[in-house]
């Protein structure tokens, strides 16, 4: 059973802002969806990677990359060739 405080906790983990009015609706929907997901609890066996998936290795050699201006072009906030992010502390 997913409670409204579970929804708020998951939203914190996912860094997704949700409004107070959305919480009860999400809780109701999530309980219905998880009940549906639970049908797979009876599935037997172990998981496996996607069909045909395998590790692919390559030599660790430098390759061409985008110029700095191209990398910075879409950033909302830059300074001296760096991208600015919110403060961590």
């Amino acid at each position: 059973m997913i409670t409204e405080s579970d929804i708020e906790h998951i939203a914190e983990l996912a860094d997704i802002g949700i409004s107070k009015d959305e919480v009860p609706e999400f809780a109701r929907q999530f309980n219905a969806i998880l009940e549906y997901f639970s049908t797979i609890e009876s599935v037997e066996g172990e998981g496996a990677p996607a069909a045909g998936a395998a590790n692919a290795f390559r030599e660790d050699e430098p390759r061409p990359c985008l110029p700095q201006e191209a990398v910075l072009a879409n950033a909302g906030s830059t300074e001296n060739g760096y991208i600015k992010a919110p403060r961590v502390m």
Partner: protein
Amino acid sequence: MAGTLNFSPDDSYNAFITTCAEAPFGDGALAGIAVAIKDNLSTAGIQTTCASRILAGYIPPYDAHVVELLRGAGAAIVGKTNMDEFGMGSTTGTSAFGPTKNPIDPERVPGGSSGGSAAAVAAGLVPMALGSDAGGAIRCPAAFCGIVGFKPTPSRVSRYGLIAHTSSLEEIGPMARTVGDVSRLLSVIARYDPRDSTMVDRPYDHEPSADIKGLKVGIPAEYFGEGVDERIAEQVRTAVGVLEDLGADLVPVSIPGMRYALPAYSIICMSEASSNLARYDGVRYGPAVDTKKSWHEAYQDLRGEYFGVEARRRILLGTLTLSAGYAGRYYAKALAARRNIARDFERAFSDLDIIAGPTMPTVAFRPGEVTDPLALYRLDALTVPASLAGIPAISVPCGRVDNLPVGLQLMGRRFEDERVIDAAFAYEQEVRA
């Protein structure tokens, strides 16, 4: 014969997010042909949004591999098509740029998530388009709009430059009005690219052949049962009868693991999406994050404001299914279910060449007719099994119910994309003749 194609369509169905009024083209196999590109494929210098406000204004600095190949083949990239936000939906109704209408009946949804590509082709605005398909996102809109859409075997088309949503399932594929054009477009895009580490060097070079004598076609009971509109089942049985008349042998088959396909698909898809979409933080691209706020507060506010409700719902569900206490119950079981379904198909294909069924359990519906998230997820019931099994699958038009298009879905063995194309081509040639 290089030049510029003028492209200013009357886009009354809202098929495009961005159009290129003057699209350059070159020489090659697709010289001067207008091709529309789903808006989750990176196009250098052309806005690419995934139909999300969180990417509005993003101009990719590079082309996806498939876009490079199209340009190299002379195609004119005429625009970026509408889709469900980040591919999260089957109606193209979750787009931040408004819904796309179905050209067959504008009162109805075009399907999704590649609904803009399907509508652009069905409306005759372009002869061909690229879509992407994780659980049916090419096949569903192809069926609803009455065109052909193909999801190739994973690892045959490079996903370099495809903006990630559900990495273990999503493939890029061609959409067009005929199987011949789908095949033509596939020959351009199915080329090896080491930048997608999941690729196998199996280029597609194939001329469709309508000779299907002796082809063994499996008919799974699960595709014609509960939840499938009886009139659609009947229409598809008739279509399969056409294959039989052309010399195919029909064989009943069962895919028992299919009952777990939908929940397994939803869990894998949402789990991967929650991880992939963590990158949208307004720092490197997208609307600028407020750098005055603290780390979590800034991201929560930005992501709450710019993601649509379905994107937020799926990120939250995916975070939940990957979190402590839930990952074993849901995510691990979903992976096991995927392996079981893949084995069911493998077993069936030990004695079969093709498996046939309907693409969608319903015809195109009106927006608002299906709104509950769970009911919407269930629409993918017949398309997700091929995705989980990692096999090629095509949807080809096979008549109408209520005057709305029905799709015949043909699935094949891994790397037998050519055979799937041939079976679809044989059907198409016969019913058009």
